[in-house]
C-alpha cells in the first residue's frame, strides 16, 4: 500500500505515481482542498482520499475505485470514463460533468449542475441536487434520493432521471414519464450496487419529451 501525505508530497507526484501503477491500494491524507487529486487514473487501483478535496478530484477516471472521505469541490469525477468514484460528504457544482461511463456516488448532497452533459455515467446522490442538474444530459442515469432543484433535465436527450423527493420546476423539454416494472427493477439493481439504501418503487422517472430534437418550422417567427 502506498501512502501520500499532501502536506509533504505534491499532487503532481501523487498523480504520477497513480499513472505509473497498475494495481494496489493508495491512501492520500491531508488533501487540504487541493485541486486535481487522483486525476486521470487509468488502472484498476483503489485510492482512498481522507479529507476535503478541491476542484476536479478523480477527473477522467478509468477503471479505478476512488473514495473521498470528505467533501468535494467543483467538478468531481468530471468526464469519468469507467470505475467508481464515491464521495462520502457533499459535492460542489457540476459533479460528474460530461461523464461517459462508470459510477459516481455522492453520499451527501450535490449542488448545482450535477451531471451536466452526462454521456453515459451513472450518478447516484443520496441527498439533494441543486438547480440545472442533468442539463443537456445525453445518456446514463441520474438518481436523486432527496429533492432536485429547479430546471431539472433542461434540454435533456436520452438520459434517465430518477428522483425520490420533490422536484422544482422542470427544465425545457423534460417531462415526467411512467415508472414501469422494468424501470423499478433496473433502478433497484443500480441502488443495490452502490450501497445507497432507498426503495426503487418510491422514485419518479423523468426524461426527454423529444420536442427539441428537430427544428420546428412553426416556431421560425419566435426567434
Amino acid at each position, binding site marked *: 500500500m502506498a501512502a501520500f501525505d499532501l502536506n509533504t508530497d505534491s499532487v503532481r507526484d501523487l498523480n504520477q505515481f497513480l499513472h505509473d501503477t497498475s494495481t494496489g491500494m493508495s491512501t492520500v491524507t491531508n488533501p*487540504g*482542498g*487541493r485541486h486535481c487529486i487522483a486525476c486521470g487514473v487509468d488502472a484498476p487501483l483503489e485510492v482512498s482520499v481522507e*479529507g*476535503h478535496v*478541491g*476542484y476536479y478530484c478523480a477527473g477522467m477516471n478509468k477503471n479505478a475505485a476512488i473514495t473521498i472521505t470528505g*467533501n468535494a*469541490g*467543483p467538478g468531481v469525477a468530471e468526464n469519468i470514463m469507467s470505475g467508481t468514484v464515491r464521495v462520502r*460528504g*457533499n459535492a*460542489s*457544482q457540476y459533479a460528474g460533468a460530461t461523464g461517459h461511463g462508470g459510477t459516481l456516488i455522492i453520499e451527501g448532497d450535490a*449542488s*448545482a449542475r450535477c451531471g451536466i452533459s452526462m454521456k453515459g455515467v451513472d450518478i447516484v446522490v443520496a441527498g439533494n441536487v*441543486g*438547480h440545472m442538474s442533468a442539463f443537456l444530459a445525453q445518456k446514463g442515469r441520474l438518481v436523486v434520493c432527496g429533492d432536485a432543484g429547479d430546471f431539472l433535465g433542461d434540454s435533456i436527450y436520452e438520459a434517465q432521471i430518477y428522483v425520490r423527493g420533490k422536484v422544482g420546476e422542470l427544465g425545457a423539454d423534460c417531462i415526467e414519464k411512467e415508472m414501469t416494472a422494468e424501470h423499478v427493477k433496473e433502478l433497484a439493481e443500480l441502488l443495490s450496487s452502490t450501497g445507497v439504501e432507498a426503495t426503487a418503487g418510491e422514485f419518479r422517472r423523468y426524461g426527454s419529451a423529444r420536442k427539441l430534437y428537430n427544428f420546428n418550422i412553426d416556431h421560425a417567427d419566435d426567434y
Partner: protein
Amino acid sequence: MCGIVGIYLKNEALNPGLGKLLAAMLIEMSDRGPDSAGIALYRDPVAESHCKLTLHSAEKVDWGLLQTEMAAQLNVDIEVTTRGSHCIVIAEIDIASVEAWLKARHPELRIMSAGSAIEIYKEKGLPREFVEQFKLHELNGSHALGHTRMATESAVTTEHSHPFSTGMDLCLVHNGSLSNHNWLRRKLRDEGVDIQTDNDSEVAAGYLMWRLREGDSLEAALERALKDLDGFYTFAIGTKNGFAVLRDPIACKPAVMAETDDWVAMASEFRAIAQLPGAEHAAIWEPSPATVYTWGH
C-alpha cells in the same frame, strides 16, 4: 476569476492573531487573483465621539505634515498611523467634517474607508507581497474580509482593487463580473452616489451605499440587488459587527462556508479555509444561490 475570503471570530481569544489567519487564507487564494490584493479589517473601534478613516495616495505623502495641518485647521487632536502606502487617521470629530475638509484641501488623497472600526488596505501585486508590505501578521481584530484580484473588466490599479467601501464601516468584495454596470453607474451618479472608477464591482458597492442611504436594511438591499444587478457574483459584505454573503441565482462563482465553535469563515475555495485552526472538524456547506447569509451584524 478572483478569490474571496472572510473570517469572523466567535472566540475573542483569537482576536490578536486575526491578521495572521487572514494572511494565510489570502496567500492560498493567489492562483485565483495574482494582480492585486486587499483586506478590510475591523479592530479597535474608536469612541462614539471619534472617527477612523483609511487614506491612500498614489504619490508619496508626508503623513506627519498632514497630521499637523489637520490638527491646526480642524482644531482637534489627530492620531495618524501609517501602514504601507496607507494611513489610518483617528480624530475626535464627525466624519462628514473630515471628509469635506479632505476633499477641499487634499483631493489627491483617496478615502478608502470611514467608520469607527473598519480599516481597508489594498494594493497591486501578489498577495504574498501585499501581506509583507502591510505587515498583516501584526494586525488584531474581530473579523475581516480579503480579496485577491484577477482583473477581467477594468485596469489593474490600487483604486480598482477590492474591497470597496459602501458606507460607514461597510465594504464589499466581489468575485464575478456584472453586465449592466455601465447603465447602473449612470443611474447611481444621477442619485448622487460618488463612483470614481470604471470598475464593475465599485458599482455594486455604490448600489448598496445608495440602498442603505435610502433606508433599506442590509438584507433588504441585498434582496433588491438580486433584481437589479445582472451578471455573475459572489459577494462578501463586511459590516461593523460581522459579514454577509450573497451569490447570484446561477451561482457559477464558487463559495464555501465553514463554522467551528471558534470562528465562521467563507472563501472561494475550501483550501483557504483549510489554513484555519480546527478546519478539519468544521461544519462545511456551500451557500445556496440567491440567498442572503449574515453573521454577527
